[in-house]
């Protein structure tokens, strides 16, 4: 079994296919040209044979009750149209006996009559293939009644020569056309593949850290699809790389100070001789450690949300379930036992396409913010508003000052009121989630208090069911 290896280059593949196509076509046309040529040669020389046979038949007359052939030279002049071919002739009487002929010893037997006046047949002539015609002439004379059969034959040299000539005449222009087509195909393929070449040149010259999108406007549509998906991929990669950098720089920036403080307080605790003041220092140390733990949680959560927003597959989820989960977790009872928490959800599902974990984290952060900074009671609610699904948290306070509110959501932005436990990452996580799922953050102060909302595009349930 022969294994076929496709050539690696696209151009070579297409050219190969075109060549194969042209060759197949060429073979088919050659075959048909050969058949046509043979047919034409056969017809042309069959007519000559018939002409010669007719000549001989016409020159036969009845003399004394016997057919006599006055063999005409014109018949042989006709046959000499095929100058290199050997000839045969014979005239048979009514009983099949030979009247006259070329070779009285080597007779080509007449064929059985089929009724036609002239019949052609193939038979060997001294070991060489030859073509014969058999012609019948009827006589109705006083002293002779019956028919004579004239057989004239010729070898096939001239026929082959003519057929070959016709085929070659037909094939030369075709070969030239095939060559021209091949050249044309080469040019066309080259120009069609030029954008691809430019693309690969662009890619190979690109900085390995350059993740900016590649221009796709001037490319053929097939390539645009590819480039767009590649650009999407590169964008995601870019965001992830940036998120990773942020995480590292945040961690470095945020962790250094508390860790240094913990170390100093631990050293101070070691040096404190008084048990009472040592206990005080230890208590502060514990508080610091807790704060660091919270910070770590938030950092990791933020990183996780940033990561998931890009990489986690979106699923259809009901915002009511998210809210319910958070309330049922009862974290708020630990965090702020004195604040009353209410849950407002409707009966119809509020569906979005998102990542349950990310949305859960965002909602958790919103709630924690309200519990910490707001005034009770705090309400967690979910509602559908037109094409938007809204998860909101409301407290009875007035919200932050407009100047602070403007800066809210930036990383590490702390209000003067925020204590050590707050590092300002909460709203930033919400913002990141909103951005990841094509949503936004809404803030408003109303009669009922200050409300922060995570607004996501609502999933068209009908569409998803279909």
């Amino acid at each position, binding site marked *: 079994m022969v294994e076929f290896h496709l050539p690696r280059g696209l151009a070579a593949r297409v050219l190969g296919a075109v060549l194969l196509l042209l060759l197949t076509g060429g073979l088919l046309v050659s075959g048909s040209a050969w058949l046509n040529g043979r047919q034409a040669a056969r017809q042309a020389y069959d007519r000559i044979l018939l002409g010669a046979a007719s000549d001989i038949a016409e020159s036969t007359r009845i003399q004394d009750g016997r057919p006599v*052939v006055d063999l005409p030279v014109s018949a*042989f*002049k006709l046959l000499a149209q095929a100058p290199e071919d*050997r000839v045969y002739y014979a005239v048979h009487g009514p009983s099949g006996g030979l009247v006259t002929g*070329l*070779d009285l010893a080597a007779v080509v037997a007449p064929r059985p009559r089929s009724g036609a006046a002239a019949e052609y047949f193939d038979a060997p002539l001294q070991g*060489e293939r030859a073509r014969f015609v058999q012609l019948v002439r009827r006589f109705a004379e006083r002293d002779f009644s019956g028919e004579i059969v004239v057989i004239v034959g010729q070898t096939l040299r001239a026929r082959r020569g003519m057929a070959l000539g016709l085929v070659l005449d037909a094939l030369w222009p075709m070969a030239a056309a095939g060559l021209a087509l091949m050249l044309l195909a080469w040019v066309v393929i080259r120009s069609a593949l030029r954008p691809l070449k430019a693309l690969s040149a662009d890619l190979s010259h690109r900085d390995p850290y350059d993740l900016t999108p590649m221009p796709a406007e001037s490319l053929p549509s097939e390539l645009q699809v590819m480039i767009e998906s590649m650009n999407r991929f590169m964008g995601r990669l870019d965001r992830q790389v940036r998120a990773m950098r942020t995480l590292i720089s945040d961690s470095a920036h945020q962790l250094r100070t508390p860790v240094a403080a913990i170390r100093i307080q631990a050293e101070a605790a070691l040096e404190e001789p008084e048990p009472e003041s040592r206990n005080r220092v230890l208590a502060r140390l514990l508080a610091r450690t807790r704060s660091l733990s919270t910070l770590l949680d938030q950092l990791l959560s933020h990183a996780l949300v940033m990561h998931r927003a890009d990489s986690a597959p979106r699923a259809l989820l009901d915002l009511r379930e998210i809210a319910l989960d958070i309330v049922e977790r009862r974290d708020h009872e630990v965090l702020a036992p004195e604040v009353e928490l209410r849950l407002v959800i409707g009966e119809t599902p509020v569906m979005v396409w998102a990542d349950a974990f990310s949305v859960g984290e965002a909602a958790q952060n919103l709630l924690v913010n309200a519990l910490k900074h707001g005034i009770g009671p705090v309400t967690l609610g979910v509602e559908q508003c037109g094409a938007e699904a809204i998860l909101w948290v409301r407290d009875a306070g007035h919200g932050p000052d407009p100047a602070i509110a403007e800066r809210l959501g930036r990383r590490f932005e702390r209000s003067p009121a925020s204590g050590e436990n707050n590092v300002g990452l909460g709203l930033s996580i919400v913002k990141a989630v909103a951005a990841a799922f094509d949503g936004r953050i809404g803030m408003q102060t109303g009669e009922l208090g200050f409300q922060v909302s995570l607004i996501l595009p609502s999933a068209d349930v009908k569409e998803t069911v279909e």
Partner: protein
Amino acid sequence: MRHAARRGLADLLLAALSLLAILTAPTVVEAAGPERGAVFGEGGTPLIFRSTTDMTIIRPVLERFVERNPDLAVHYEQWASNALFDNSRAACEGEGGGDPADAVLSSAVQHMVWLVNAACGSPYVSANTAALPEARRWRDELWGITEEPAVIIYNTGAIRGQDVPRSRFALLDMMRTQPDLLRGRIATYDLAESGLGYLFAHSDSLEATSFGALLEGFARTEAVATCCSSEIIRDVAEGKFLIAYNVLGSYVTERRSPEVGVVMPEDYTLVLSRAYMIPRQARQKEAAARLLDFLLSPEARKILTKIGLVAHMDPAETGLPLSARRAIALSPSLLVAMDRHRRDRLLSLWEGAFVPPFRP
């Protein structure tokens, strides 16, 4: 007609019967063998060369050939044309005893065409053969070596100046105007006897309508149909015949005598080219091809011209225009000459013209 008068009816019948025997039973090998033979050269490779050409005429060509090819020994055999045909045909059909010929050269070109048409020849191509004109080769299996015109000869003592018939029409006029002078003194080949005479008569019958008039004229002047070139030429030289029609020019050249004048008829002159064939059964095809190339070479042509087998036919020399030359082409048309009905018809025309009113 004198000859017919001399010859009995029995002879005629016998000739007809033997002819019939040849035609109807071709596979019967004639007992007739070569008339003469000789070996030229002392080489180790024998080359059997059968020909109708007189050995004494062709001798210088063969001597030069073996001189050039010392590895060959040419076994030359001189045959009568009919016997040579039967021999070649038997060899071709795988019958007949003895060694097959390696090369055959015959003046009976219709026989040779018949043999090649029956696939008895083997092909050969060289620069020399390719240079031959169309009329002198066929299928690259048959080649015309010589150029010998059919001429009218006359006795220069009896006919001279304006009286010499330069064309067939002049001869016809002469037979009409001087019947008494020419009565019984015009000779030509006997068609039934001479293959060459038959070939010329056949070609004449195809060439022009003058043939019928000629036959008529021959009948009126009681022309003599006889055999054998040498006798005819001798008799013309001696004045027994005044004119002989369609004599092979090469024989006249060979037996040149001042009493014999030669005319190449200006209306048309038939030119015979002896045909050379390498039989399919030949054992020494390569040597036969060498002989062929030699025969066509300028060197051999010079010798052939000298011995008369290639005639001087320069228009400036003979006054014969090129258009009057009628080569007897080596082509399947010659098969017509071999047809028995055609032959019967020509012979009956001939005999009819020659039947004398006072035949016993």
